[in-house]
C-alpha cells in the first residue's frame, strides 16, 4: 500500500517565551531622573546610589512601586530583583503602598518604660487599624518602630520620619486630627519625602586630581620616612 504519509500538521506556533513586558523608563519624572543621575555621580560605583534612589522614588510616589524599581535597576545597572531584594531589607523602603502619613510609634526599651505599649494600643484603637495597617481613607499607616533615638521624649513618635515629641493618648489624637486637617504640612511632608535640602553641586575633586594627590602623597610619605631614617642615624 502506497500512499502519502499523512500530512504533517502545520507546526503549531511555538508560544513566545514569557518576556518581561515592563520596560524601564517613563515612570520617574524628568526632574526625579535628573536628581537620580546627580546622585549616582557622587559615588565611585553607581550601585551605591541605590538607597538614595529608592528614597527619591518614594518621594515621588509615596512608596517604592514596581515601575520605579525597574527604572532604578536600569539606572544603577542591576536587575529589578536585586533592587527589590535590597530594598526589602530596609524598614523605611515600602514595596507596598502606605498612607500619606506613616506614624511610627517606638516601643523599644526606653519607650516601653514610659508607656509606649499603651500608646500603641490606643493609636490602633483610635485609628481603627492594626499595626502595619492603613486607614481606609489612605491617610495614615501605623507602624511599631524600633528605637528611633529620641529617648528623652518617650514614648517617641515619628510621622514620616519627623520627630513629633513624646505623645500621650490625648495628644496623639490631636496629632492625627492635625495631620488629617493638613495643619502640619510644613513640618511633615507627605510620606516618602525624606531630604528636602538638595546638595548644591556635584563632586569638586576630579578623578585626575585624586590620582595625582595619591601619587604625591605616597611620594611625600616616602621622602619623610627617608628623612626620618636619616635623622635617626
Amino acid at each position, binding site marked *: 500500500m502506497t500512499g502519502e504519509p499523512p500530512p504533517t500538521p502545520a507546526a503549531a506556533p511555538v508560544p513566545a517565551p514569557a518576556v518581561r513586558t515592563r520596560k524601564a523608563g517613563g515612570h520617574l519624572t524628568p526632574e526625579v531622573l535628573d536628581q537620580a543621575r546627580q546622585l549616582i555621580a*557622587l*559615588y*565611585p*560605583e553607581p*550601585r*551605591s*546610589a*541605590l*538607597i*538614595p534612589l*529608592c*528614597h527619591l522614588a518614594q518621594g515621588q510616589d509615596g512608596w517604592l512601586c514596581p515601575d520605579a524599581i525597574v527604572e532604578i535597576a536600569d539606572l*544603577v545597572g542591576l536587575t529589578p530583583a536585586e533592587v527589590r*531584594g*535590597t*530594598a526589602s*531589607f*530596609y*524598614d*523605611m*523602603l515600602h514595596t507596598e503602598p502606605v498612607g500619606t502619613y506613616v506614624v*511610627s510609634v517606638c*516601643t*523599644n*526599651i*526606653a519607650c*516601653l*518604660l*514610659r508607656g509606649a505599649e499603651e500608646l500603641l494600643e490606643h493609636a490602633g484603637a483610635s485609628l481603627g487599624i492594626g499595626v502595619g495597617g492603613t486607614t481606609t481613607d489612605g491617610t495614615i499607616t501605623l507602624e511599631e518602630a*524600633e*528605637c*528611633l*533615638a*529620641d*529617648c*528623652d521624649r*518617650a514614648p517617641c513618635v*515619628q510621622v*514620616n*520620619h*519627623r520627630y513629633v515629641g513624646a505623645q500621650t493618648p490625648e495628644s496623639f489624637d490631636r496629632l492625627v486630627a492635625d495631620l488629617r486637617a493638613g495643619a502640619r504640612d510644613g513640618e511633615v511632608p507627605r510620606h516618602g519625602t*525624606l*531630604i*528636602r*535640602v*538638595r*546638595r*548644591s*553641586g556635584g*563632586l*569638586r*575633586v576630579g578623578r585626575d*586630581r*585624586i590620582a595625582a*594627590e*595619591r601619587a604625591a*602623597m*605616597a611620594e611625600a*610619605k616616602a621622602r*619623610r620616612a627617608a628623612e626620618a631614617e636619616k635623622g635617626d642615624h
Partner: protein
Amino acid sequence: MAITEAPKIVTARMGHPDSHTLERYLATGGYEGLRKALTMTPEAVAAEVDAASLLGRGGAGFPAGRKWSMLRKNPVSYLVVNGDESEPATFKDHLLVERDPHQLIEGVLIAAYALQVSQAFIYLRGEFALGLERVQAALNDAYDHGAVGEDIFGSGFSIDLVVHPGAGAYICGEETALIESLEGKRGFPRIKPPFFPAAIGLYGEPTVVNNVETMSNLPWIMLHGGAAFAALGEGKSTGTRLFALAGHVRHPGVFEIEMVKTTFADLIFAPVLGGGIPGDRQLKAFIPGGVSAPWFGPEQVDLPLGQDEVAGAGSMLGSGSVVVMDEDTCAVRAAWRITRFFARESCGQCTPCREGSGWLERIMARIESGHGREEDLDLLLDACDNIAPGLTWPPQQTTICVLGPSIPSSIGSAIKMFRDEFLVHIKEGGCPFG
C-alpha cells in the same frame, strides 16, 4: 565622685538655638581646628589624636588613633562616618547631627586630612530626616565657605564629602554592614578576618570607619591639643563623653560628662543630671551601655563612668546609653522586649542568631504572658549558650558579627538578678506587675 567642671567639648554650642548654622559656628571658633590642622603635616595631626587617646565613641571603644595608624602604613582610600545610631536608648549622635552639623563636618575634614583621603561619606540613619537636612545644608554652606572641595582654605588639600541616608536597619551600625549598605546592598556584616575594614573596606579598598561623636571631638582636640584632652578623664578613658540617659529618670537627656570622674549614681540622681527616679521609687536595675550590655543592679551604681571600670564589673560602657528601671518594672517584660528587638533586627545570615533570637523571643513571650514552664529557664539559658558558648563576658563569638552574642545579655542578666520574678510569672500564670 563628683560632677566636674570639665569643659564642654562637643556640646559647647548647644545652648544657642541657631547652633546648626554656619554663622553661629564661625562666631564660636568654627573651622579654626581645621585651619590649624592644615598648617601641620598629616602625621602631626594624627599624632595629636593619638596623644588625646580618644576612644571610639561608637560602642566598641577602640582607640581612634590606633585605628588610623593601622591605615597610615597603607594609603587610605575612603573615610566613612558611622551615623547609623540605632542601639536602643542611644540618642547622642541624634543631638550632634541636628544641633552641630558643622562640628561633625569639621571633624570629618580633619580626619580626612590626617588620613589623606579625597572622599569621605557621612552615613546617617534614614530616620534622621531633620539631621540629614541639617547636615546637607551645613555641607552646602561648608563648600561655599571653602572648607570642603578643591584646595580647601588654600591649603592644596582637596576633599569631597557626601551625605548618605540609610533606610532603617539596626545592623547597619556594624561597620562592615554599613559598608555593604553604602555599596547599595543589604546590610549583611562581612566575614572576619579582616577584623577591620582597614585592609578591605568600601569597594574593597582600605577604609576607616569612625563614629559621629568620635569625629565631633576632633575640632576641639586640634585647637586645644591632644594633651589637654588626655588630661581629662582617667586612665584609658580620656576626655568627656556623651551619656544618653533614658527610662525612669526625671530628666532624661544627653549629658556631656568627664570620663571616670563621675559615677552612674551621679548621672542618675544628681539634680543637674538625671534628677533621680520619679515618685522617689527605688532603683531596680540599669543598663550601662546599650541593650547589648549586661545589666547592673543598685550595688553597682557607684561605679565610675569609665570604659575599663565598667568592663571590670562585667558589662560595658558601649554606646554610652544608660537605661534606668525603677522598682515597678517587670524584668521579664523588659528583657523580652530587648530580645524581640534583636529577633527583628537579626540580618539572618548566621543560624545561631537568626534561629536563636526567634526561639528566645517566643519563650520569653510565653513566660511573660503567663504560659511559661519551669523548664523554660533552663531552655532559655541553653539557647543562650548556643549563641554565646559559656555565657561569658565579653561573649564568645559564634556568628559573623556581635549582634548574635549580644542577645543573651539581657536574658542572662534578668534571670541572674530576678530569677524569682520569672518563677512568679510561671507559677502564678501572669505578671505580678500587671
